[in-house]
């Protein structure tokens, strides 16, 4: 089965799967060595690594979105460098009815694209069946959340999004489950970056909320079964439409989500994990600090997880423990 790489939470994996293709949310590997010169020129480390990782992938096609300006522009770079077809999904930043209509029409266009790159055009019944399968898997995943460590849960989200079986939770490491409740928010992780969760838990924290763009927050909202007469694609679009995201304008939905989930999980500290040049998340730092009476650790992770970062994480947990 051909795989189709996608870059962002607003690309419905179910649609790719219903077309008979294998969805692959690519969390890129850090492009070691090549990073520094490009990053010093303003290239987002994530966008840079994503393009570098694509070269190692045998995916039949690549789907980008307009959620981030640099990733939007990366689709154009793909066309110049790679023979594989790329698709740029217009994800509106505003959220009115017209914007939803645009998103829905974009999913229709994506469906046509997937058929052109080797997929088959699914019937509504097939799409509904695939949606139900994904919804069930996500429900099981969320129900099992407390049995996973932060890293395991992040990896399980990725597996389920890629249509793979949910991995079995392993024994909790050390004292994580009774550690200080931490929310990790920010940019999508790269492969291997879940080490951050390990570090937080090793120093006495417990990641209870993964509100990164590749974490729990980015899961689509479960929708009731489609009403008779409602096209399955519209129902699918609605479930993805309400994903809280920093790039939405206004992005009140992000804070409604954080308010609700952080209160429910008694979060005591926030880690903002972002890339240098990621203006979207960087600009939220001041707001997070103003809005929540919690310590906020700002981790600009343009470099691989470094001893310096580790020390900062340790100090952050020390401060929280002392409160």
């Amino acid at each position, binding site marked *: 089965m051909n795989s189709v790489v996608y870059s962002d939470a607003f690309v419905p994996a179910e649609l790719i799967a219903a077309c008979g293709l294998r969805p692959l949310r690519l969390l890129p590997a850090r492009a070691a060595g090549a990073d520094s010169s490009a990053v010093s*020129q*303003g*290239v*987002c480390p994530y*966008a840079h690594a994503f393009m570098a990782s694509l070269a190692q992938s045998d995916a039949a096609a690549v789907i980008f979105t*307009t959620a*981030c*300006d*640099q990733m*939007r*522009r*990366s689709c*154009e*770079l793909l066309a*110049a460098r790679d023979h594989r077809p790329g698709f*740029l999904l*217009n994800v*509106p*930043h*505003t959220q*009115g009815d*017209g*914007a939803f*209509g*645009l998103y829905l*029409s974009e999913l229709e*266009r994506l469906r*046509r694209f997937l058929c052109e790159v080797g997929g088959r055009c699914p019937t509504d019944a097939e799409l509904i069946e695939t949606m139900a399968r994904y919804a069930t898997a996500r429900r099981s995943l969320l129900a099992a959340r407390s049995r996973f460590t932060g890293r395991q849960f992040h990896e399980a989200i990725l597996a389920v999004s890629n249509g793979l079986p949910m991995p079995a939770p392993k024994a909790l490491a050390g004292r994580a489950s009774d550690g200080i409740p931490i929310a990790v928010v920010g940019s999508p992780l790269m492969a291997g970056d879940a080490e951050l969760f390990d570090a937080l838990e090793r120093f006495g924290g417990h990641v209870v909320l993964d509100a990164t763009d590749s974490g729990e927050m980015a899961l689509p909202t479960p929708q009731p079964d489609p009403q008779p007469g409602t096209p399955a694609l519209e129902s699918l679009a609605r479930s993805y439409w309400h994903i809280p995201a920093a*790039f939405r*304008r*206004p*992005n009140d939905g992000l804070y409604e989500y954080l308010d609700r989930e952080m209160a429910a999980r008694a979060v005591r500290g926030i880690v903002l994990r972002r890339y*240098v*040049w*990621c*203006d*979207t998340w*960087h*600009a*939220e*730092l*001041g*707001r997070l*600090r*103003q809005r929540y009476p919690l310590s906020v650790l700002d981790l600009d992770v343009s470099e691989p997880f470094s001893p310096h970062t580790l020390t900062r994480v340790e100090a952050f947990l020390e401060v929280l423990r002392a409160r």
Partner: protein
Amino acid sequence: MHARARQISLDEWAGRYEQLRAGGLVEPWYGGPLSRHVAHGDTRLLHLRLDNSPAALRLWNFLLSEEDRLKEFRASGHKIVGVMKDLGTTPILAFALPKVVAFYPDGAWWLPCVMEMSTALLEASDALGIDESFCPVRAMLGAFVKGCHFPIPDLLTCSVGATCDDFSAIAQRLEALGYRILWWEVPHRRRADKSELAVTLPGGFEAPRSLVDFVGGELTRVRQALEELAGCPLDDAMLTEGIAQANRVRALLRELREVCFTASICPLGALEMLIAEMLAIHFCSDRGECIAVLEELLTEVKRRVAQGQGVLKSDQVRVFWVNPVADIQVMNLLEECGGRICGTDYLFCHALDEIPQDLPPMEALARMALADPMAGAAQDRAARICRDARRWGCQAVVVSRIPGASHCASEGDVIAEAVRSRLGLPVLEIEVPPLSDSIRPSLRTRLEALIETAGRPG
């Protein structure tokens, strides 16, 4: 009154101004000696080479008096609209209404330069978590917070979608401080699929019919908000007249560019041309006066060309400039290095194109908004740059990066590659901060090397 064309310092302008006054110069209400702006903090003027014509005097005074003008408008009961990011569309809607004026808060990005960092706008932005990793347009956030460079608008609009993330993020930070914003969407412009109807946009790009309709719907939301603000409907006849007036501005600028870029001796310096072109997107908050300023400038330029006069040497190398500079002094520097501007894409070339007047007005504006070079692929932008650079016989291209701007991370390479492969011209990529004094020697060396390379025969 007509001295020989040349560029002079602000000190020299003092004498020149007295001479003009003695010769009977009549100025609009915002006129006066340029040195008074220095007293108000615009100290960068002290380090610029300025055109010596009365027309340029009027242009500078028009630009530097915008804050006073906005206060006057407010005092006389006008509603003020702050138009963010959108380069040229919403102001046309706003100015079509009675007693409504629009201005461009993003323009505050030049304040750290013009006031040589004396206004602490960037520090105010820093304090809100928007630091130097963002585009210098973050000065706008500081200007809102300090409330001392423009009146707080009655309505704020901001286009988002296929725009720079840095600006969108800064505007979101602004909204979180309590400044309500009407967000409207400009989606990424793509080519029509085989099954879709395609529409040709001003400037020659294409877009699917469905995207034009979508943007039309977004602009209708903006129109409704403006009607509510103005307390009266904005009908198609008013809008058609507004488009005609905007087209008048655009026609003047197109002619000004054509005359300047094709003259054998450069009749007007790059600095004044940059200021003039910027008027296309917001009319500097007074559309009628904007037209008068440009008419006088065009008359002066035509006179100089007819008399074989110019402000630079005849053998200056013809340069196409991409992106506006955060430090306007760099435009002088290019000329000192032996270059002259003969083509530009300051991010808003779509705001210089004629808006179709044979279409329903909202359809015409939607097409224009989608023609924004930033909304589409960098390849599209590069194609237009190549077309214009060829047309005006440019010998070199400068891509001026804006520090921290998300679009600058990759589009410079795309543009440079297109220019080299299609035109065979040398390309230089530089980055210009709000005050470039500390890197001036290096900028000079790089520009001189470009000019030397481009000017070499063969």
